[in-house]
């Protein structure tokens, strides 16, 4: 019960962070919040007879989230090295 509410709160806060943050790192952190909350919720839903399955899919979720974070950070650092910018509005034009 308490875990579900906490996870819902963390997920909503993640959505809020993605909506209001201007720095890309802040947006990435918001996405991390959502993924972490979802992983815990997955385990809550799967506790009992599906525990092993929930754990293994939690592991896969971990892999996906880590891959997302690494690619995102690589993009941030590269964008900063190219144009010295790290705010989301500054990426308006696609052709760089």
């Amino acid at each position: 019960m308490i875990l579900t509410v906490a996870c819902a709160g963390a997920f909503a806060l993640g959505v809020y962070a993605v909506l209001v943050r201007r720095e890309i790192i802040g947006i990435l952190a918001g996405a991390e919040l959502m993924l972490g909350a979802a992983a815990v919720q997955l385990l809550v839903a799967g506790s009992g007879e599906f525990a092993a399955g929930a754990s293994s899919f939690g592991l896969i979720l971990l892999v996906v989230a880590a891959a997302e974070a690494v690619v995102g950070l690589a993009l941030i650092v590269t964008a900063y090295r190219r144009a010295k910018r790290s705010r989301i509005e500054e990426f308006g034009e696609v052709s760089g």
Partner: protein
Amino acid sequence: MSAHDLAVASAAALVLAGAAGTALARSATRLVLSLGAFLLGVALCFLALGSPLLAAAQVFVYIGGVLVLVLFALMVVGRGDGESPRVESRHDPGAALVALGLFVVLAIVTPKRPSGIAPPEMVSPLAVADVLLGSGIVAFELAGVLLLAALLAVLVIVKSGGER
């Protein structure tokens, strides 16, 4: 209230506090500290839900890897002045309303585990391996392919950034 309930409650509190800090902090230092607290709280939740393997993997991959990379990126992006870089946000009631609505819906809809029940049995890593290499083999292989793709993508991104 048993010791297990207390552990669950403290893990939940850590998750919530860390998430609030991550979403609302103004300085990058606080953001990273809160994100670390959140990830540690998630690991504790995994432990409380009976999956030590997932908890260890969470610490290994997230706190030891991803969080270090976040800090690393902040150090690269925010260097220059001695101050800790600020993380700006444009607070807006619409976004708050969306988040609040989402919270209410999620808190009502998602399945719950009744509090006060005995701590779940620990899931052994062998059982997880059985699922991953048995019925979940396709997902497992796809995750491997995804990791390889991410690795190549990072190499390509970083390489192309270095040319200029």
